[in-house]
């Protein structure tokens, strides 16, 4: 191998990018050539120094006040999927028709949740903010439904009905899981894994409800709400 070739390829050799044949040729050359070996060692040394640089460096001053001042209030967790734009297609009537039946599910589901949410809190081993997030979904859904339901298009919509079915069925599946865990907890009340599972299923149900709320374009400033 010529020296120029070697020098050019040393980097790739070090990064494991040469083919087995090329690596073998490189090895052979390096055994015979002290200059190239020195170069290799120097490169290795550089890479070692780079890896050993301190992983973190504290800034010279506390940057938090500057950051805190720029944080917008977020009492609502909306997935970043939707940017707040005024021209979202969800504002079209036909899309609202599709969405409207979905909202009705949320409301009916929320209605059935409230009686046992209290029970759940006391049996879970950790205080989870289930109540406050339910309340949020509650308020959000109220706002959304007030606007959507007044424009509900009764012509019906295949997509809406299918989504309706899917969501009802799957919330039912999660509810089934929750019931299974709760009865298992009765036979084994100190089982922390069961408690963790219970929390995960609530979170999942919450996420599902929130995803639907997101799909409905539930941003605080979508322009759908004339007043707060």
């Amino acid at each position, binding site marked *: 191998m010529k020296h120029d070739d070697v020098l050019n390829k040393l980097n790739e050799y070090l990064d494991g990018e040469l083919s087995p044949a090329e690596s073998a040729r490189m090895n052979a050359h390096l055994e015979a050539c002290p200059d190239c070996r020195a170069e290799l060692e120097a490169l290795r040394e550089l890479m070692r120094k780079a890896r050993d640089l301190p992983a973190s460096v504290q800034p010279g001053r506390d940057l938090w006040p500057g950051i805190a001042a720029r944080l917008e209030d977020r009492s609502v967790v909306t997935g970043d*999927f939707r940017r707040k734009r005024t021209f979202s297609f969800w504002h079209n009537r036909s899309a609202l028709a599709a969405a409207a039946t979905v909202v009705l599910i949320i409301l009916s589901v929320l209605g059935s949740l409230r009686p046992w949410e209290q029970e759940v809190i006391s049996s879970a081993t950790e205080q989870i903010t289930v109540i406050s997030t339910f309340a949020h979904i509650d308020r959000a859904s109220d706002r959304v439904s007030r606007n959507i339901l007044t424009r509900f*298009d009764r012509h019906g919509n295949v997509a809406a009905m299918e989504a309706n079915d899917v969501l009802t069925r799957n919330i039912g599946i999660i509810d089934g*899981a929750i019931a299974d865990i709760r009865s298992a907890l009765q036979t084994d009340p100190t089982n922390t894994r069961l408690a963790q599972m219970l929390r995960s299923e609530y979170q999942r149900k919450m996420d*599902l409800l929130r995803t639907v709320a997101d*799909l409905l374009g539930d941003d605080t400033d979508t322009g759908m709400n004339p007043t707060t």
Partner: protein
Amino acid sequence: MKSTIIMLLCLTVMVLPAFADKNVDETKSAASDGTVSIDILAGSITVIGWDKKEVKVTGTLGDDIERLEFDVDGDDTEISVKIPDGRGNRDVDADLEIHVPQRSSLEIQTVSASIDIDKVSGDIEAQTVSGSVELIGKGGSAEIATVSGSIELKGSLGSVELASVSGGIEVTGVTGVVEAATTSGSIVIEDSDLEQVELESVSGSVEYSGPIHDSGSYELNSFSGTVKLTMSGSVNASIDLESFSGSIENDFGKKPERTSKMAPGSSLSFTLGNGSADISIETFSGSIHLMKG
């Protein structure tokens, strides 16, 4: 003679029914790495990255769509359809093929349109109710959420987050990091080279087959669905399997133990090689299968 023919042709055209789909063919300049947002109700969306600093939209719009809305504002391009207010909007399908600068990021929302994305390397976000999503990754990140649509990924991607309610999730031949959660859909990951994987389902099955990276972390959970982990090649991993009432089958020798006197469940913890990767599988009633690939 010629003029008569021309006149006849014109009359024919004028008399043709006005119910033909409208064709679309518009091109605008755009930033090479801006964001392209696409919002349509139904139909199909095909996005292809190219090396021009332009966004080009071609396709057809259903009868009840008034027009295509296609605006560029700085780095942001927005594409949607205008549907007139009023009842009886039946034909609102838009079938669009959209070429975008390959480094663009995408934000796509639809109720039921199918989505196909190829050769785009920016960050990709997509939300559908029932539309399916097929993405061939080119190094960017992907966040996809659907209610009942299916999600299929291939290619190379940075971080991937997938969520479905009932739609199935399939990831094939992908490099990157994958998190996927579904309620009743199934999750299948194969032929992929992933360093970090978090998969969960409530009633659907979860399957991962592929190599295990020495510094990787693999978490597979299902409540009542089956979990199958097939590991190929040499494996260095600390493995932790737990099920409340499901069975555990292990190709690698060790047998599971009963977790407690009260529960019917089993657990199994062991190490392969130097134990550097983390593997954790948990189910409530689903069976767990650890297999050699």
